[in-house]
């Protein structure tokens, strides 16, 4: 490649726009922390089987609404021991409420890399290994138990799979539709544009939540849990594409007047090729920001559906249907830990929004120059 130096050698390829943007992004500490938090959450979702001490359907009704287990380092007579959890004895107080008391005499040592419920690692390799756990009949409830004595910690981890994947999947589908429709409408203009945009508006005039409910009602009752999951993803992306399509259409409308599009036509490229290669790539930075900012919408949409009992069905977990346990004041009063999934929804949504906002600032050239002069 090196053919000696000459005066006319063009400069070596400098930083691309993305590299500059990434550099800018990494300067924002909050955004970087958010990115790591999300990475951690997604990793947790992927390795849920291994990280959760119990399977999401492992229940023990003797421990209904058992409070979070304390991991103890001191034995009953005050001596330092290896970490253990005490057996919980169920009693009733004067109001006939369930109260669990620790019985320090029956100890179950905390074990790491222990055998537990069977699962298939990454859906393929059958395994029983769990990151931590205690031997039966002892049970460990890091963040308490739900009504049926299932471990909330495990269920939140399993719920992350549903809640976190639904955003990505939904956005992929709705953005494919939105980019396609918007690109085509703007590029061709005229009657095609008119028809497609009126179609968009038809989707936009119906308040989206009611449309969501109506479409959910159409899904057959005998669907399996997985089918329901995909049905929800499809319904949400079916509703979500219109807004994006309108914006992409506007961009495409102005891009098609650029000379490189005329040049591409003069080179004999087909319309599909021009849209795909010379129109849509120019909308990429907008799309990426928009994707980041709309993922939370899908997570919240699924949560809202599941909270109302219309989404993911028990025993399968999603953060939304875990929260549906927390709809009564009694439950919240006596078992406040069941609000925990809400915290996770909150963290995830905030992280996506912060990252989206930061990306917008980084990809906007005007903002960058402001930052450097400030």
């Amino acid at each position: 490649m090196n053919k000696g130096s000459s005066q006319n050698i063009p400069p070596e390829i400098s930083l691309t726009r993305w590299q500059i943007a990434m550099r800018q992004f990494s300067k924002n500490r909050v955004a970087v922390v958010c990115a790591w938090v999300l990475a951690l959450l997604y990793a947790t979702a992927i390795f849920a089987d291994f990280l959760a001490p119990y399977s999401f359907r492992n229940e023990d009704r003797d421990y209904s609404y058992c409070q979070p287990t304390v991991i103890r380092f001191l034995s009953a007579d005050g001596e330092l021991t290896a970490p253990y959890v005490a057996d919980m004895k169920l009693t009733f107080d004067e109001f006939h409420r369930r109260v669990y008391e620790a019985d320090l005499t029956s100890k179950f040592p905390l074990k790491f890399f222990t055998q537990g419920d069977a699962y298939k690692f990454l859906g393929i390799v059958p395994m029983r290994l769990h990151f931590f756990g205690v031997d039966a009949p002892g049970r460990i409830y890091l963040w308490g138990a739900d009504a049926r004595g299932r471990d909330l910690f495990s269920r939140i981890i399993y719920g992350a799979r549903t809640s976190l994947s639904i955003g990505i999947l939904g956005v992929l589908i709705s953005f494919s539709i939105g980019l396609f429709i918007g690109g085509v409408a703007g590029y061709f203009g005229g009657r095609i544009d008119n028809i497609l945009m009126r179609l968009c508006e038809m989707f936009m005039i119906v308040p989206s939540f009611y449309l969501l409910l109506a479409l959910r009602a159409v899904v057959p009752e005998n669907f399996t849990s997985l089918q329901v999951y995909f049905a929800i993803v499809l319904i949400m992306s079916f509703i979500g594409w219109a807004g994006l399509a309108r914006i992409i259409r506007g961009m495409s409308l102005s891009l098609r007047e650029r000379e490189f599009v005329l040049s591409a036509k003069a080179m004999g490229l087909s319309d599909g090729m021009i849209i795909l290669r010379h129109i849509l790539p120019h909308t990429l930075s907008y799309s990426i920001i928009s994707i980041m900012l709309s993922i939370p919408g899908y997570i919240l949409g699924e949560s809202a559906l599941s909270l109302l009992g219309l989404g993911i069905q028990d025993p399968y977990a999603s953060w939304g249907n875990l929260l549906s346990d927390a709809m009564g004041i009694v439950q919240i009063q006596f078992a406040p830990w069941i609000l925990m999934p809400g915290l996770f929804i909150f963290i995830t949504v905030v992280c996506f929004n912060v990252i989206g906002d930061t990306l917008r600032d980084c990809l906007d050239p005007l903002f960058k120059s402001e930052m450097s002069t400030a």
Partner: protein
Amino acid sequence: MNDSLLSIQGLSVVIRRECGEKRLLEEVDFQVSSDSIVALVGASGSGKTTMGLAILRLLPEAMRVSKGKVLWQGQDLLTLSEEAMRRKRGKEIAMIFQEPLNAFDPVFPVGYQIAEVLQEHTALTAAARQQRVLELLADVEIEHPERVARQYPHQLSGGMRQRAMIAQAIAASPALVIADEPTSNLDVTIQAKIMELFRKLRRQRKISMLLISHDLGMVKELADHVVVLADGRPIESGKVSEVLERPRHPFTEKILQASLL
């Protein structure tokens, strides 16, 4: 007539306005025979670029051909289906634009954009296309083609970009290249080099050219025939030597004087 590649017969182009239609080109006739360079000269706004776009059927929506024929190897391009016309663009008739910075898509490296033309019009594999792109860049006398192929349009100098544009235009070996003011944004030394390149390409590849220009110096150097347009009307045409030596029309004389001053 036999070796006529492109024959424009009585071509008129109009633009739609609120108050009716306005003529942009009126009854233009000329021919480009194979292995020749025809220059279309005239002041700005005389319809030279419109002519080029009309041949490729890429006129803006507001304009349309109202009369006449564009015969390409005996076939009227204006009657072809859109798909058949698209196959001819780039493969048989290519166009070089005035400002390559705008004519290249800023978000892709130039090598990629040249390869795109090959992908559209040839059956080459991806690896063969890459190879061909480097050959093309070498053909237009670009040094370090491997590096230039990976660069984005804004990273190249004006002359380099114009060379890359020419490489893109000749990628699918078209029979005719329409060059719309190919050197007007370049400085004089680069202009001379580009002209030299055109001459070489014509020699080696037998590519005919329709040169759209207001630079009479360039026309004199390159073209065989010249058509002078004024206000969309062809006022004079003939061999370059004759028209430029002994202009018959006062307008031709005027632009001749202007450029020679």
